[in-house]
């Protein structure tokens, strides 16, 4: 039996969650204060994900803030960053516009979080 201690980061409370594992299978989850914590702890043990936020170059100068529409696997963050390195975005762009499709083969798009006219 293996126990993983996870600090939940869904909200600022930072619950200390203990996940007990037996041969890679979750046996019990304790220490959460809301049900979002259960999901977070499960994912954190089985498939840790993060929302990637970064910037892309604009053809008009300066940068555009962007994020992945949903969290992507933590281990693909670096790969996703490398993919965005040489992308240049043509304005106008609006909040929510898809600027890169299927980042790092995740099936998840990169969307603009700022407006540029």
């Amino acid at each position: 039996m293996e126990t993983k201690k996870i600090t939940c980061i869904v909200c600022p409370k930072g619950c200390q969650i203990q996940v007990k594992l037996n041969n890679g299978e979750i046996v019990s989850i304790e220490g959460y204060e809301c049900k979002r914590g259960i999901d977070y702890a499960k994912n954190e043990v089985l498939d840790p994900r993060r929302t990637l936020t970064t910037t892309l170059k604009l053809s008009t100068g300066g940068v555009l803030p962007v994020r992945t529409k949903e969290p992507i696997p933590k281990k693909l963050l670096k790969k996703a960053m490398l993919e965005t390195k040489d992308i240049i975005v043509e304005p106008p762009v609006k909040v929510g516009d898809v600027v890169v499709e299927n980042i790092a083969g995740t099936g998840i798009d990169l969307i603009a979080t700022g407006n540029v006219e």
Partner: protein
Amino acid sequence: MINKELVVIGGGPAGLAAAIEAKKNGVEDVLLIERDSRLGGILPQCIHNGFGLHIFKEELTGPEYAHRFIEELEDLNIEVLLDTMVIDLNENKQLTAVNREKGLMQIQADAIILTMGCRERTRGAINIPGFRPAGIFTAGTAQRFVNIEGYMPGKEIVILGSGDIGLIMARRFTLEGAKVKCVAEIMPYSNGLTRNVVQCLEDFGIPLLLSHTVVYIHGNSRIEGVTIAQVDENLKPIPSTEKYYSCDTLLLSVGLIPENELSKMASIKIHDVTGGPVVNQRMETSVPGIFACGNVVHVHDLVDFVTMESRLAGLGAVDYLKDKIPSDEYISVSAGPGISYVVPHLVDPEKILGEKQNFFMRSTKPMEKARLFIESDKNLIRTRVLQHVRPSEMISIELKKEDLANKDLKSLRFFLQEEGVADGN
């Protein structure tokens, strides 16, 4: 002299929320003045997610959070002056502002809301010995370079202080390909939110050196390295623990200071601990009709709390302008053991806006489990058990109107008692 019903000074999250709330509740003539060339304050450069969980029930980035308020402001046709600096304010609610287009403007306001926010403490504020080379930035300045201007200030980074912006920038620099060597924090605990320690440092294997500080800066024209030492319980460096770290950039994330030059010009009473105006239950300062909210009053860690507080200030201004408020009879709200300060500092128990009054406070030290006591001169009003109390994470407590009204209270006091580690895990 231009006449305005309500002038809001500062277009960050506090100013946006306060102006919107006032306009929505019947103040027609609202003017928002912002010194930058865009609205949103610090939010546009905070490109990371995690904003808005309380108010929007979703995780937004800083620019998205600002966008929602800016759109609402535009829909409400609130007048905005960008690139405009307020250079003078007095207690008669007269202010002087300048910009390139209109030159100097003198404005007489019926009510004012101060939302100037805060600024970062710099090297000068913490007196680090050594040379004065280039390459030393406050974390927020570096954040602006990377996220707005699109420039990387360096490749090998050391961060002093574990404030949230420093932690966020540790991750940002790492993702952009720089090497963040360590984050040194003089206190024995982090000054940032737990989630940021986990997501920004632990995720990337960046060491957090607690009870450590920078004792020397090396390099002549550009910083070449720093000496970091462990500190003892009196925060004095222990010489035998000194270690050299090479770096081309030092980021400082060592605290924020409410920006109150204008408040002081207007002779507004400033609180010793927060460095911001003393405010009542409507976020009104010691000068009637001048309100303040957000980081100019006390430094917040969550923008949602700024928004909540600023909506209250907006409503306070609405009531003031309608002349609904007879003179208040305040009782003092004080911070007892375990609490460093409580906002609001003054309350008229009979004149709470709405059904509940919110109190914001910070603990003096981390406590795993603590009991918060709220007592008046008459009785113990409430207690509440709190888990994982941290000075960096603001505590927000609501008291009901019936807890306060019609009781002839003379004072309110909040204090925090650490509870023994209860269960054996």
